[in-house]
């Protein structure tokens, strides 16, 4: 009996190690290939001469991009949108979630429903598009000509994140708040000195959700930002991809490196910042998933 047990366990262990290794390698391989392809010579890229390690190493594709002002523009724009967008979203969410977490708030159920309903039903792309166009017109009329502010302010709020924050604030023991009020703290001080420090990790998680969605935002940025100098990185990558994979446009390509290398180089550039901060933020992401099952 004992013997049979060990065999079945061993087999399962071997299977899981093997399949997991295969899956992990498959997850990682496209990125490694992109890095190799971005620095390989033209023939190696075009005729799939490289499997994993780069061949005929060149850095012309990278230098072509680094010399492109539009690329740096796009990068700055993405940083701008990510930074201000995250701050704006956090500002509105934290204040809103704090107020919603208070039992003494009137019409609390109504406000909650107001939020949750947006998770159930959205008006759809076309009305949203018309609405953003109107907003853009208003913004231009009051003198904000930079469409990036439209992306920062009007887009990217998520009811789910506010509910995560609200639940976390509700978990703060009321005794601590009462103690602070007895000591003469105002509403702002209670929020700033009690609630925010006590839910640091969930705020970090929510900030991360907002930040990543801003960094990755594509569709509305492309629709709404008319000046190509203000395009964020994702739009820039997509436009380049459309240009560089068009066989007609690329027929006259006569550089020493493949046109695909430029695309791969772009992809590498856009994932490098995420790769750098990835080890530090990964645990917050795991946390966000585990608190996802929420109750009303």
């Amino acid at each position, binding site marked *: 009996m004992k013997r049979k047990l060990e065999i079945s366990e061993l087999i399962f262990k071997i299977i899981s190690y093997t*399949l997991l290794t295969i899956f992990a390698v498959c997850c990682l391989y496209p990125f490694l290939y992109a890095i190799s392809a971005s620095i390989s010579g033209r023939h190696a*890229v075009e005729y799939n001469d490289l499997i994993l390690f780069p061949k005929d190493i060149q850095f012309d594709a990278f230098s072509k991009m680094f010399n492109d002002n539009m690329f740096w523009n796009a990068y700055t724009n993405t940083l701008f949108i990510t930074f201000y967008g995250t701050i704006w979203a956090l500002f509105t969410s934290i204040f809103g979630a704090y107020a919603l977490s208070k039992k003494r708030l009137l019409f609390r159920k109504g406000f909650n429903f107001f939020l949750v309903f947006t998770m159930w039903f959205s008006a759809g792309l076309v*009305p949203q598009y018309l609405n953003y166009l109107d907003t853009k017109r208003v913004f231009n009329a009051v003198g904000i000509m930079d469409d990036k502010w439209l992306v920062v302010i009007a887009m990217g709020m998520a009811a789910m994140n506010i509910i995560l924050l609200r639940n976390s604030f509700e978990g703060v023991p009321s005794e601590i708040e009462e103690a602070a009020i007895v000591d003469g703290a105002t509403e702002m001080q209670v929020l700033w000195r009690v609630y925010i420090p006590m839910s640091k990790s969930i705020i970090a998680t929510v900030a991360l959700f907002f930040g990543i969605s801003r960094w990755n935002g594509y569709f509305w940025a492309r629709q709404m930002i008319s000046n190509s100098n203000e395009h964020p990185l994702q739009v820039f990558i*997509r436009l380049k991809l459309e240009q560089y994979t068009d066989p007609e446009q690329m027929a006259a390509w006569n550089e020493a490196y493949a046109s695909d290398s430029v695309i791969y180089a772009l992809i590498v550039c856009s994932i490098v910042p995420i790769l750098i901060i990835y080890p530090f933020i990964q645990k917050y992401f795991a946390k966000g*998933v585990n608190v996802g099952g929420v109750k009303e």
Partner: protein
Amino acid sequence: MQLNATDYLIFDEESGTYIENPEQVVRDDVEKHHWLNVLKTVLKDWRLYLMLVPMLLVFLLWRYFPMYELLGCFKVTDEVKPVAEQFFSGFSYFKQLLVGAGTLTTEFWRAFRNTFLLSFYGLCFGFPMPIIIALFFNEIRSNILRSTYQVMTYLPKFMSTVVMTSLVMMLVKQGSLTSGTGILSQLLVQLGLISGDTAYAGLMNDPNFFRAIYQISGIWEGAGYDSIVFFAAIIAISPTSYEAAQIDGAGKMSQMRYVVLPCILSTIVIMLITRIGSLLNIGYEKVLLLYNPNTYVTADVVSTFANRYGITGTMKGLASAAEMMNNVIGMLLVIGANTISRKASDVSLY
């Protein structure tokens, strides 16, 4: 309004007695003096209500105004008719989409079918993967090795849709006079899974492959990350349960069947219900980035249909009507799923 006993009194665990519900105190207060008192309560606590304002404004302006504009989309601008009749003329769009005879009707039904099928296949193939991966993670005893695997498999989730789709398109790109096909296409040809001609024409241009590409890239992107929640449920199982099963002579498979599965079943059910609830909310961005006119047959979903006719094209009313039908059915699914979840496991998702 239905009131429960807990609305008046709540059990205070600290003192072990029932105390008055603070919400009810406010309600009583309001009821006594009506709206004047509402105003007074708000004024007394004005800071709290001021904090609510930015959030409400954002949601009102950019979530609820579009819903109002949705009504405007159905208005056929006809100044002779009174306003009420103008609104009702909007129903002609629904009629045209559902029972019309033109290409628009066929395209709409195709888009609706594709939306459903893409989600459904995602449910069949994409949903079990994270569970399997979580089970495998549980087998790895070394913490360092497991963390390495976790870092590797979560990584694709952090990539933007644009980068992800760009990589996919490059890996299966079509061949041309000057260059070969993408490396993944080449591998598939060498394995004998697809013919050389198909690979040369480009898998992205072949409607037969769109759904497979969509699902496989979805698994690549999300399976590792989605396994977190299942893995958390598995490691919460007490080791004594396994020991008890082992003493009773359970092999690995029996342990899976009688220990692990029952323990994570509630998590699976909740995730499954959420998944069913969002069956019609397909991420339009990914489809929009992956599809092209050659693959409309299998790739066109309702959102992209609306995008093509309403934003790129000029048929705003028609496109809105199509998407609204989709979203209303989607909403009913979410609410239905949530109700079932509440009945089945006392867990309400919202």
